[in-house]
């Protein structure tokens, strides 16, 4: 059989969406926390100048793309969690015994996770309009969506790779929290990386989220708000996405149902 089974990918994507729509608490949680972040940090640090934040870019403008990256990161980590909770409730067997290539299963997970991540980011972005954030253009919004999907894909691949190493959700959740926070804070989401000591700064430069958030800034706030050129941002995120998806798919292929 081929590697891509469109109907199976659709089935997995649709299931993720149904579950997302029904889990109201998750919807509210992923929506409210980031808005609090934007509101409290945004107002709290309103007048503060952060090193290399460009002149003419307010802190809220600097912060919103960072928070969108943050939302995407956490949303993507749910995909790894979903594999493990499927295993815990036995549903993973239903998927693994079906005549569907594993690659299609991984693609379905990514499609579902990226869509729900995009919806969450969209909701948060809508909420930030209340605190005065204004995206520059429709083209910018489209470009931002590209970055959000690329970031989702990257971190879903990462989550699947990580999930392959765990048998239950508890261990995964614990480790994910250890990994997500450094990733979020070493990405320039809340302050420029150049404010950090050089040794730590380099970790930030290796973090795909750095380029995703910088790309979002360029797309939503304006080119001069971004630290790196657009092709660099896009190339870095695309490369990271390809690597984590391949590794995730390769490891997921070895996941046993029991």
């Amino acid at each position: 059989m081929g590697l891509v089974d469109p109907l199976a990918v659709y089935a997995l994507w649709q299931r993720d969406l149904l579950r997302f729509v029904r889990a109201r608490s998750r919807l509210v949680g992923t929506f409210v926390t980031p808005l609090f972040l934007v509101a409290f940090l945004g107002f709290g640090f309103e007048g503060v100048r952060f090193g290399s934040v460009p002149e003419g870019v307010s802190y809220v403008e600097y912060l919103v793309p960072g928070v969108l990256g943050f939302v995407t990161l956490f949303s993507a980590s749910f995909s790894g969690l979903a594999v493990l909770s499927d295993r815990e409730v036995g549903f993973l067997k239903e998927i693994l015994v079906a005549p569907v290539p594993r690659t299609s299963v991984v693609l379905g997970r990514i499609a579902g996770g990226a869509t729900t991540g995009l919806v969450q980011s969209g909701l948060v972005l809508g909420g930030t309009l209340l605190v005065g954030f204004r995206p520059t253009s429709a083209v910018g919004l489209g470009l931002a969506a590209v970055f959000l999907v690329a970031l989702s894909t990257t971190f879903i691949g990462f989550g699947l790779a990580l999930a392959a190493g765990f048998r239950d959700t508890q261990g995964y959740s614990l480790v994910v929290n250890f990994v997500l926070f450094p990733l979020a804070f070493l990405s320039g989401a809340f302050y420029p990386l150049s404010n950090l000591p050089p040794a730590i700064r380099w970790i930030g430069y290796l973090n795909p989220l750095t380029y995703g958030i910088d790309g979002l800034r360029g797309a939503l706030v304006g080119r001069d708000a971004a630290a790196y050129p657009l092709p660099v941002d896009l190339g870095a995120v695309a490369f990271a996405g390809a690597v984590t998806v391949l590794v995730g798919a390769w490891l997921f292929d070895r996941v046993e149902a029991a």
Partner: protein
Amino acid sequence: MGAIEVRGLTKRYDDVVAVDSLDLSVGSGELFGLLGPNGAGKSTLINVCCTLLAPTDGTATVAGHEVRTAPGEVRRRIGVVFQEPALDEELTGAENLAFHGRLYGMRNPRRAERIEEVLDLVDLTDRRDERVGTYSGGMARRLELARGLLHGPEVLFLDEPTVGLDAGTRNAVREYVRELNARTGVTVVLTTHYMDEAAALCDRVAVVDRGSVVACDTPEALTSRLGGDHVEVGVDDPVAARDRVAGLDWVETVAVVDGGIEVVVDAGERRVAPLLTAVGEVASVSTVSVRKPTLEQVFLELTGRSLRDEGDRAVGSGDPAGGRAAANGRGGGR
């Protein structure tokens, strides 16, 4: 060619041998039971036949395809109901079925038609749009049976289909299994450690112990290995009674026991009356009891161990897959 041909199948986990050069043939359309204690290797055998586990050695051909060389072909042709529930509780019954149909490449309108058919088959049509989380254990099991049949498999595997259900629900599920087999002609292979389930449900039963098949036959033939039905008659003169019935051609053996005789006859129901008439000619009868040999006794005879004792012991050892499921406490109800 039968539905399943297993030859010399071995599955080893590190140094534990879960399935030990096992041979098995299941004919097309059969309702076939694998009977054995927890940890006998039944679940491992099923998981190998479903392509979820790779065999260490030997071959297993399911629905005409070898599990190792053509797993995709096997998967297309089988339905599986796992020991533990494998439904998405956030989705409705119909959504679970639609998801399954898509994974098996079924497109509308055939998918929608089949969903209605199988829901009707297990009497869940009126609950189709309710979340599976609200279903009872029995309803969930029925939905899983329906799902296993949705894509029209040639072979349906049921791993302990009635474990964790209460007695009434268990009987209902058995009825459904019988009905599905009769109406659709699908080959059913089920594992169980309930003797009554194997005896009441299956055309043929393979008794599995320590990873191999120790006997395989119809439930009747298996129990008749122990000889016929035992009739115990309490009489005042056992010796006279014994001498009177010993010559009857339907009496297999007769022995004097404390306060009476124990007679083994070919068919208990039909022979009790003539037996009592004969005994009554020479002695006065006080009590009578008929005992049919059970698969439990057959198992004891074949393995020297009781199903139940072995089952309890095997939780901590034996088949790692079965042991793990039991240790997780997930084999039970919901």
